[in-house]
């Protein structure tokens, strides 16, 4: 019997699987909260979730809806502020993994969460880079959530809010970055990674029932799908934890699968 699940569910679980036990997770809200929390409950109990606002390792008995939600300040090992939070995000001793989202992404993982059109006279304004630019600049690694759409996977983003691999190859190191960069892009159809040398995005995994070609078709630039393999379907245990423990009110998950 095949289990049904929603896009958001498999995205949270696919991203959660990328977490190692002991990672220090820089979480936003939405999917990243789910991914971090489910990873902790399934396979990475010693991972620590923290927020750029300064809340470190909260109990999260309820899901926060913003990084400044009072729910990120309760039962933490420490409450501090932004300076402290960023000192951890970029701490050279820590394996910090940040979860980010964006409006646009290019083949080298540079992302845009600032605007569409000209920066001076934007057609659409988004909130801005927030702490994403800092995470992409100095975290140990970054996982990016995206909807798999041609208009979001573009040859050139309208504005680089948060620098990924820049123009690929060693461009990132040359620009001045000492570590980090995106290592996975998790979409509603699959998981992309970046080529070891060229740093160009390729399809790493497609979800069950999705064809690699369908993903390539939903990508605005040429995507190498030759190395792709099918992802493991969400297990019943994973779904149960996600649905019953992580987001029982479905505040972020939204409606159950039809």
């Amino acid at each position, binding site marked *: 019997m095949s289990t049904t699940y929603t896009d958001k569910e498999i995205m949270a679980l696919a991203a959660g699987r990328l977490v190692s036990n002991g990672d220090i997770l820089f979480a936003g809200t939405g999917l990243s909260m789910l991914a971090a929390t489910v990873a902790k409950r399934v396979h990475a109990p010693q991972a620590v979730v923290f927020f750029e*606002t300064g809340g470190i390792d909260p109990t999260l008995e309820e899901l926060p*809806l913003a990084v*400044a939600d009072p729910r990120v300040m309760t039962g933490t090992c420490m409450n501090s502020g932004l300076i402290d939070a*960023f000192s951890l995000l970029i701490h050279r001793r820590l394996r910090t993994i940040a979860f980010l989202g964006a409006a646009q992404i290019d083949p080298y993982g540079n992302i845009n969460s600032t605007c569409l059109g000209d920066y001076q006279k934007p057609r659409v304004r988004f909130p801005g880079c927030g702490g*994403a630019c800092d995470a992409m600049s100095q975290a140990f690694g970054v996982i990016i959530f995206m909807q798999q759409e041609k208009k979001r996977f573009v040859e050139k983003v309208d504005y680089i809010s948060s620098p990924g691999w820049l123009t690929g190859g060693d461009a990132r190191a040359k620009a001045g970055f000492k570590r980090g960069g995106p290592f996975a892009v998790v979409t509603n159809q699959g998981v992309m990674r970046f080529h070891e040398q060229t740093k160009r995005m390729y399809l790493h995994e497609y979800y069950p029932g999705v064809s690699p070609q369908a993903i390539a078709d939903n990508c605005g630039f040429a995507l190498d799908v030759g190395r792709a393999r099918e992802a493991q379907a969400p297990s019943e245990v994973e779904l149960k934890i996600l649905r019953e423990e992580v987001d029982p009110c479905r505040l972020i998950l939204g409606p159950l699968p039809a």
Partner: protein
Amino acid sequence: MANCATLGDKLMSPEEAVRRFIKDGDMIALGGFTVNRNPMVIGREIIRQGKKDLHLVMHSHGQAMDLLVGAGCVARLELAYGGTGRFAPTGIRFRKAVQSGQVKVEDYSNFHMSLRFLAGSLNLPYIPCRSGFASDVLQQWGFGPELRGTGKIPRDKAIIGQNPFAQEDDPVVLLPALNPDVALVHAQYVGDDGTVRIKGLTFLDVEQAKSADRVIVTCEEIVPAHTLREDPDQNTLPPFLIDAVVPTPYGAHPTACHYFYDYDPRHLNYYRAVAGDDDGFRRYLDEWVYALDSQEAYLTKVGAADLINIRANTKVGYAPGLDRR
């Protein structure tokens, strides 16, 4: 009630605080973060007094920012993020104002803004970091040459320099310090000596207050100083940096104030529903800002049911089980 008399002429109404300490064109640092501890009472009073041409500086905001921008009080912003999380992933009036060219925006990252305020608070002229190389955050300047180098706006948004201690090529991003005219802080407690205590995350409120020329603090409670001085490790700002203390229960509503109340999902959802439409937003301002001349009138309009609904559990600090859809 604590002995407010010892606060002397620092104790004042929102009307007096805004009239005395905020003028057109000022650079104002907003305390709090997106849906938490926004200085809403001062924000609404600024709108009522019709302040113009304000220059807001902050990291990630937020309900107060969106309201001030929507009301036309703001000409310029420097910020990293404008929104309230799930309630408005992009600030509703912020988006409109940027798209229409009503405001000029200078984007930075949250760490950039944090370091700029930190530098301002430590009297450092600038501060280096390694965030944002080759990004448009540093390469695109929102403020044109007509603004750069005027007033408190430095000639350069940021400069790519070199670490002078390195033996080899080691680029650094140099960021100018921020020293706003006014910092707005909403705190849980102010002692009757002026000592400020913020509970929960302090965000960047301390650095913002220390970097500013003037500081206005609104608070949930004025308490006897000795209750704060019994555990001074927990206090946040000393009295002598504070210019105005404004007691305002529920002063951050509809944003949250840890251990006092949660954010108000009903109000934030209502705001989102009406603020996208120009007429709707005008009506919101009429009803929720202009028609109400005091925090008492504001809270009466919010209503007892809502206030009880969002009341924080005193142990966990928020309202467990609150309907937040």
